[in-house]
């Protein structure tokens, strides 16, 4: 059983999608339980895989017994075992929170929503688990197309934003495919390990360089790496809450994983770092991404939109950390995949609750929220502290590794950008807290003194519990950073960086 884990990971949600879409026609009540069952299955499998990898090292899987490089080949090492766990945990927690929103916002579309949800998860999990560059493209498109559809479920300008996303996303995916195609031309293989084996004599080839650059641009476009981020804020803002809190934490993180995988496993560090020597330039791009993401976030009046720019800045953290090219930077980047997924989930869930109760997440809707929605706001505070990087929340620890990496690499620009963005985050979030805390209810500027009555209008328990699981998770993951780094991430660090 356990040897089929890598396949089950993708097959379980894929199977679930058939049942869900069927249930959507005949018994819509069953959609949610089927989705839970499918994703709980892949959650358990991914945790089992993580355990297997931690105890017995990397696992590989040949579909139907076909050997690579011809058959579909899945491979799970410490790096993607961790990312798989992150993806499935985030997807599952968010699913639990999604139910109330779906019932309120688009009950008639429950069938399509849950079907798309599991297919999106299938795509993401497949991208992470696969060891085949072309297979990755197929799954990337599955995740992307379902993602477009999910975003288009939103109200108002959502379809337009989704269309914008489709254009940009398609260009990104095509670039990726083009890169893989070039690699296929020169090596004749699509299997990642096989390509890596065939590539070293071809480093001098311009085709390989072109493949690398095109592929990277495609991946960056998909992760919203500044200045290729223009599609991201609109798409994530106008999407319905349960979609934003699914897509925002996961899509960018998985693309960061794809970047790391392509550079480390396919092109190898020898080529990307030593031969091309692009490190410094890319880290500077990341500096720009962090600074601009933070500044653009400052200019927003809508909390959800502000968060999307924080996502843009955080992408800079991970890209920069990885391209620092040392062990601490790599550890920071990978740890940040985990931490940022959880932080972003926490923040988007909290905003989802606010939208659920208030109808929108603009600054005008915030006054008095600490009184009326204390639990949501408290979780928002925990998420914010993690983004700011206050120990013992997990956000501190990835920032710590990134800072250490920047110092080791002597890249003070990146160091300064990280500190700058932390400080901007303080301003960003305390601006929200100020409005929620100081401004009285109903916009009247009378004194808040005296009225101790509690007019609590919280989101339903079904949304609060997942939010608080995530918020507590931020602290727990922070406290267990030593374990996570020591037992998982340290084994994922490429030998060249040690």
């Amino acid at each position, binding site marked *: 059983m356990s040897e089929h884990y890598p396949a089950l990971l993708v097959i379980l949600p894929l199977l679930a999608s058939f049942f869900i879409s069927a249930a959507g026609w005949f018994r819509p009540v069953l959609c949610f339980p089927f989705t839970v069952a499918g994703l709980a299955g892949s959650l358990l499998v991914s945790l089992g895989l993580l355990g297997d990898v931690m105890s017995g090292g990397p696992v590989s899987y040949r579909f139907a017994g076909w050997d690579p490089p011809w058959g579909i080949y899945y491979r799970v090492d410490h790096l993607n075992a961790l990312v798989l766990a992150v993806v499935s945990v985030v997807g599952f927690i968010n699913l639990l929170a999604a139910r109330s929103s779906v019932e309120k916002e688009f009950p008639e579309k429950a069938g399509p929503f849950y079907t798309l949800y599991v297919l999106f998860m299938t795509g993401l999990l497949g991208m992470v688990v696969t060891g085949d560059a072309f297979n990755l493209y197929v799954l990337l498109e599955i995740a992307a197309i379902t993602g477009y559809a999910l975003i288009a479920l939103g109200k108002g300008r959502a379809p337009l934003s989704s269309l914008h996303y489709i254009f940009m996303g398609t260009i990104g995916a095509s670039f990726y495919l083009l890169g893989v195609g070039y690699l296929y031309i020169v090596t004749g293989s699509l299997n990642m390990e096989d390509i890596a084996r065939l590539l070293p004599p071809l480093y001098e080839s311009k085709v390989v360089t072109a493949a690398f650059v095109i592929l990277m641009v495609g991946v960056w476009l998909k992760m919203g790496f500044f200045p290729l981020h223009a599609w991201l804020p609109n798409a994530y803002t106008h999407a319905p809450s349960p979609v934003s809190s699914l897509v925002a934490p996961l899509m960018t993180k998985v693309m960061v994983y794809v970047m790391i995988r392509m550079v480390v496993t396919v092109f190898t560090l020898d080529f990307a770092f030593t031969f091309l020597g692009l490190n410094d330039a890319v880290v500077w791009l990341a500096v720009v991404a962090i600074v601009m993401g933070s500044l653009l976030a400052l200019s927003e009046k809508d909390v959800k939109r502000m968060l999307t720019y924080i996502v843009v800045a955080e992408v800079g953290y991970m890209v920069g950390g990885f391209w620092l090219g040392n062990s601490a930077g790599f550890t920071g980047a990978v740890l940040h995949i985990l931490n940022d997924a959880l932080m972003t989930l926490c923040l988007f869930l909290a905003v989802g609750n606010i939208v659920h109760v208030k109808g929108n997440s603009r600054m005008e809707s915030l006054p008095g929220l600490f009184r009326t929605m204390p639990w949501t706001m408290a979780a928002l505070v925990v998420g914010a502290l993690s983004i700011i990087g206050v*120990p013992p929340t997990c956000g501190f620890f990835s920032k710590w590794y990134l800072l250490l990496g920047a110092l080791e690499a002597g890249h003070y620009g990146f*160091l300064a950008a990280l500190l700058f963005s932390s400080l901007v985050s303080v301003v960003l979030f305390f601006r929200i807290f100020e409005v929620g805390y100081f401004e009285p209810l109903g916009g009247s500027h009378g004194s808040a003194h005296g009225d101790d009555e509690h007019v609590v209008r919280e989101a339903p328990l079904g949304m609060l519990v997942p939010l608080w699981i995530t918020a507590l998770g931020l602290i727990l993951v922070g*406290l267990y950073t030593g374990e996570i780094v020591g037992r998982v991430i340290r084994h994922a660090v490429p030998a060249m960086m040690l």
Partner: protein
Amino acid sequence: MEPLYSIMPLIAVLVSLGVVPILMSSRSANVREAWTFGAAALKFLIVLSMLPTVLEGRVLVCTIAEVLPGVAIRLRVDALGMLFALVASSLWIITSAYSIGYMRGLKEHGQTRYFCFFALALSATIGAAFSANLFTLYLFYEMLSFATYPLVTHHQDAEARRSGRKYLLYIVGTSIGLVLPAMVVAYYLSGTLEFSGHGFLPASSSPILLGVLLFMFLFGFAKAAIMPLHAWLPAAMVAPTPVSALLHAVAVVKVGVFCILRVLTEVFGVELLASLNLGTAVAYVAAFTIIVASLIALTQDELKRLLAFSTIGQLSYIVLGVALLTPKGITGGMVHIAMHAFGKITLFFCAGAIFVATGKKYISQMAGIGKQMPLTMAAFFIGVLSVIGLPPTGGFVSKWYLVLGTLPADQWSMLIVILTSSLLNAAYFFPILYRAFFRQEDQSRNDVAVGEAPLWCLVPLMITAVGCILLFFYPFIFLRLAELAGS
């Protein structure tokens, strides 16, 4: 002697955290206050129970989680930590009583929130006192910053909002902008953040880098209000007076100073500082702060603002004492944590009592107040003596050691700074007393008969005033702890 593994430090930190859910769920004010008291008393007793072990020269250690290679969230009770924890936990009990009187007397809103965050702040304070390494210290330092924000801005009006911004800008801005990078560099240089008696920074590092690091720490821990990063402290005086009393005379500012002491003695180490002559540099910064803060205090009319500037000056005494790098100076600086805490909290309590009883905030309104509130003003007098450093109050003891500390260091200029500042202290405090006792109250307002503040306010300030005097006669525990910490 080897450390003793014990869970007591953790319990001491968590006690006040543990009552937060109870405080939040209780609707009755009496139940809430009973729990606050219970937690405060329990915390004090736990701290006290560890005192004999520490006086034997042993340390208690408790590791919570190994978070980074070579860095754990770890608690360690040593002499310096014990000294600070004793002061903070004993004064919390008294402040709890005072808070009840003050908050009820003024019918403040949001009292549940107030007591919750107060408990949280105390947890962070004790945690900082018991931190075994720079990382744990930073953790509790930040926790304290964020836990005190709702207390500082308790009134939730425009002024509180402005002051809250200033508070965060200074405190969090410096801790993220200066302390965090300094800490990363320190870790990068030495591979550890664990405090040790001789400091952990390698002496082989470049002197310029070490100097820069030292000043990043010195200004980064802006809670110590070293100039020019002091402006948050007077602004934070918009908080209710018990907050100003405990947090801005004892917990918050002392945590800042405490962090600096740890950095001076256990990150850099006295030998390293002496060899690079960095102690003198720190001493000059502190001396500047002492004099300028005292001069500014001369010009203040609002009593709490005057006390804030007085605090800024007094905090730098502590830094100055340790920066002298002589045994007596270090002892004096450390003991001053306790002595100043008792003196200053008395003064803040008095200011609050005057406000509760009469609604007066400005010194110019306080003519003849000594006749209306004789007990309060008597306590105020004792507090003043202690802060100036006159016998028979505890403040004299620490000042005596500070003065002695300057002599072997051959720092005549520092001796002059300490004495001048004492004169300045007298110059801004005695006019208040003169006005209170020897000037007639304005006849126009005489129709309002006012007496002392409620007993809940009065008794605590009497206790701390008596404490100031007792510390003159029995300073031995604190002296012993400071000597242990300095050796």
